[in-house]
């Protein structure tokens, strides 16, 4: 049999219609009585199976009259390219051409939406088995129907490019489907061998390419509804401030003014157009209750190694005694980071005789609906959440509390309302990547390899207090913030004594998931330290790492990736033409990655010329888009590593605009990126986040070789500026 989890475990229902067929499946439940160990393993390594919303039968496929298959995706497309991979999987198992498959994000009213989120780099990995099984089953259903409609034997029929053929007769899938009154659901057929796929494993172009190159209105903020009005919402600029009241200084006479609406901690102006709403907004004076003006010092006081909730997340061998001879200790830090996705958040909300509809960019349509249901005191069945293409996700669309504001405004106005964030609102009401502090300690053995390694990491919330149920469950079970833990444990199993300790603190504002979560900062701390120890031991940093890695399983795969990166990137400890190389590796969700970077300093500025990235993501369903994710991870990771920093200033989060919030631009992007893919597993593994891990450490390790200085604080350019000053 093809797979362990057969589709027959799900109950099939079929919705007929004129030339349209919906295949519906009841979702499976992800966790039952999760044991501590299981969750811990999951959090560290294994990609979980896809978990459907599990509430009711829902729509997966539609066969349309023009003989295409429309797939209602439970996962959203936020740039990661998963719609294309889904189309490849469907085309291969349903015997279609790529242009015969269309993918849209499922609406909560009709489709299956993921019970958790689109995130964790798990879209393709999670749907790999169930989606191919569904597609193969659908193909078999069509063949069986064609057999009964034509009176032929199933064995004499073949299916190719959307047609079932018997001798010189053939019928389109749409034609077959249109004549079916009651579908019979067969057992899931055997899935094909990997090597016999025509589309899977090939670098086919993205299915959303045309829409994105020609400016089609596919994003959340492109949504509109006849008769809608626009909202500008005033929310507190000062952290922790509470809304008291407003005074109008002539808002009523502003052009396009519709009304003022007050909410729990906001006041909004509705107007005929968005610029009019923004102008009218300036005619409100708002009074806030400000209990405290938080400062950077307050945060640093709260968030330190040795403060907050202590959890040992890894323990092997004996602990390091600080007084022991030969123990080296270094401290590292990373700042608060903003998501800064280019499409601001927002939502279109309207009521009609069916109930409430909300159209928005969301990574959690199911959770958005539940939250709307609670806040609006409506049944979930009365609410339809319509996810669009996302103008960037990166974890920011896991919090969609603004959907509630849009719904409340639509209710108050009795009209459709479109609410979009200003950029200042976006920066001040982000769910930030928390600042982190790290202490790493270690000791060499007599041969000059690591004998002990200990990582203490202090972080604000990542998965703790998040809307995502899984994370909450895990946090409650473990007392550990599994998001902050990503990359926090020591991946070198050959170091006899190693441990990792988390120090967790909840900050006075929301911090949450940011692409790769704790991985970037944790890897920066550990891999910078390992590099420093290699220098101390006078060893090649590549061999210094592989020496403490086993050959089996995850560790063996990591070892291979490290060796491969050193080879492909031609890593050398010596430097030429003012350029030095830096090496670092990381492991995230069962996916090892290693980077070799070539760096110079020109007029005080860090320049990254070339990055070689080796990734073992198992089966690359679309190798071109895996490469694109590696390139994007490297550049977004560089941006965060070199430049980005949010701070508190006079109680307000700052900066509030691009530019002052410094990010990587075209001129900072490496001129050369080499991506080399290793297939160390026979299933697809997560791709969108793991290759972001090593970049900060790799750059820091190169700077160490260029200057003799160890950068210990992200953003690295700021750290270097201080050293050069």
């Amino acid at each position, binding site marked *: 049999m093809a797979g362990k989890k057969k589709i027959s475990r799900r109950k099939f229902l079929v919705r007929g219609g004129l030339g349209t067929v919906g295949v519906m499946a009841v979702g499976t439940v992800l966790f039952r009585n999760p044991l501590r160990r299981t969750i811990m393993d999951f959090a560290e390594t294994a990609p979980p199976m896809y978990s459907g919303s599990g509430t009711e039968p829902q729509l997966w496929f539609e066969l349309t009259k023009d003989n295409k298959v429309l797939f209602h995706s439970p996962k959203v497309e*936020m*740039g990661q*390219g998963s719609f294309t991979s889904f189309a490849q999987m469907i085309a291969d198992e349903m015997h279609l051409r790529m242009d015969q498959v269309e993918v849209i994000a499922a609406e909560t009213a009709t489709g299956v939406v993921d019970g958790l989120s689109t995130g964790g780099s798990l879209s393709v990995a999670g749907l790999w088995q169930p989606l191919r099984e569904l597609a193969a089953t659908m193909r078999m259903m069509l063949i069986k129907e064609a057999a009964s409609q034509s009176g032929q034997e199933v064995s004499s029929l073949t299916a190719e490019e959307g047609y079932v053929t018997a001798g010189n007769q053939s019928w389109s899938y749409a034609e077959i489907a249109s004549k079916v009154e009651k579908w019979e659901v067969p057992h899931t057929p055997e899935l094909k061998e990997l090597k016999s796929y025509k589309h899977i494993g090939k670098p086919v*172009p*993205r299915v*959303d*390419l*045309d*829409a*994105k*190159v*020609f*400016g*089609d*209105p596919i*994003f959340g*903020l*492109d949504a*509109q509804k006849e008769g809608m009005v626009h909202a500008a919402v005033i929310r507190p600029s000062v952290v922790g401030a509470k809304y008291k009241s407003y005074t109008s200084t002539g808002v009523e006479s502003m*052009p*396009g003014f519709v009304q003022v609406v007050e909410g729990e901690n906001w006041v909004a102006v509705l107007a005929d*157009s*968005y*610029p*009019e709403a923004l102008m009218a907004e300036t005619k409100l004076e708002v009074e806030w209750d400000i209990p405290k003006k938080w400062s950077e010092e307050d945060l640093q006081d709260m968030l330190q190694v040795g403060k907050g909730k202590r959890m040992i997340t890894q323990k092997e061998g004996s602990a390091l005694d600080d007084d022991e001879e030969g123990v080296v200790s270094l401290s590292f830090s990373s700042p608060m980071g903003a*998501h*800064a996705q*280019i*499409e*601001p958040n927002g939502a279109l909300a309207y009521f009609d005789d069916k109930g409430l509809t909300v159209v928005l960019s969301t990574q959690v349509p199911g959770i958005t609906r539940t939250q709307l249901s609670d806040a609006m005191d409506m049944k979930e069945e009365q609410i339809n959440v319509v996810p669009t*293409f*996302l*103008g*960037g*996700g*990166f974890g920011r669309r896991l919090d969609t509390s603004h959907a509630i504001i849009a719904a409340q405004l639509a209710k108050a106005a009795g009209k459709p309302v479109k609410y979009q964030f*200003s*950029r200042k609102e976006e920066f001040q009401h982000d769910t930030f990547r928390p600042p982190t502090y790290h202490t790493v300690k270690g000791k060499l053995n007599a041969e000059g390899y690591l004998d002990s390694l200990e990582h203490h990491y202090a972080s604000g919330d990542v998965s703790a207090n998040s809307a995502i149920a899984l994370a909450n469950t895990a946090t409650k079970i473990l007392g550990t913030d599994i998001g902050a833990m990503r990359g926090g444990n020591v991946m070198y199993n050959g170091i006899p004594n190693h441990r990792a300790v988390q120090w967790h603190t909840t900050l006075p504002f929301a911090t949450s998931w940011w692409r790769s979560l704790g991985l970037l900062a944790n890897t920066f701390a550990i891999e910078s330290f390992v590099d420093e120890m290699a220098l101390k031991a006078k060893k090649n940093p590549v061999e210094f790492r592989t020496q403490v890695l086993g050959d089996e399983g995850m560790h063996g795969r990591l070892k291979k990736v490290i060796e491969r990166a050193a080879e492909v990137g031609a890593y050398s400890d010596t430097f030429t033409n003012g350029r030095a190389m830096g090496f670092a590796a990381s492991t995230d969700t069962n996916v090892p990655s290693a980077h070799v970077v070539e760096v110079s300093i020109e007029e005080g500025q860090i320049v990254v010329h070339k990055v070689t990235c080796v990734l073992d993501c198992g089966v690359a369903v679309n190798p*071109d*888009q895996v490469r*694109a994710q590696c*390139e*994007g991870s*490297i*550049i*977004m990771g*560089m*941006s965060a590593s070199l430049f980005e920093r949010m701070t508190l200033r006079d109680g307000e989060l700052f900066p509030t*605009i*691009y530019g002052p919030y410094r*990010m*990587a*631009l*075209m*001129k*900072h*992007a*490496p*001129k050369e*990126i080499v991506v080399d893919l290793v297939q160390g597993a026979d299933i697809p593994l997560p791709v969108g986040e793991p290759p972001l891990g090593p970049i900060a450490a790799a750059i820091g390790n190169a700077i160490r070789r260029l200057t003799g200085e160890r950068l210990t604080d992200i953003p690295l350019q700021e750290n270097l500026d201080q050293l050069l000053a």
Partner: protein
Amino acid sequence: MKISFTINGQDQTVEVADPYTPLLWVVRDILDLKGTKFGCGKAACGACTLHVNGEAVRSCSYAVKFAEGAQVTTIEGLGTKENPHPVQQAWKDQVVPQCGYCQPGFMMATAALLEKIPNPTDEDIDQNIINVCRCGTYYRMRKAIHQAAELANNSTKE
């Protein structure tokens, strides 16, 4: 106040209460051309880039009254799916977009750059293409810009 201009080859007259209304909102919400994006409202990210008389302009901070009598081009008028502009063709060939939101602004900025500098060097690109892309597609964009220059030059030679 009535303001008239040509947009993507068509004459348009719009009525706005405030002549300082940013051109972006006129294009998006009155003329319903949604390809031009709102990113920051302060001309800091370039998602709203379009052409006014062939110049790349950040339309979120460009008063509609300055478009009076002008030729405005948006991504919808740059090329079509049937007949793409060289920049769009190159963007497709290099599979540049990820989330795609910032891409129209980048393509418009690139098309304007190629009008001024038909064969831009890497340094020209670094100095002129200063929009923000969060997905980090700069690496492929650079390749696409060089390819677009080649495509445009070949088509003028023919």
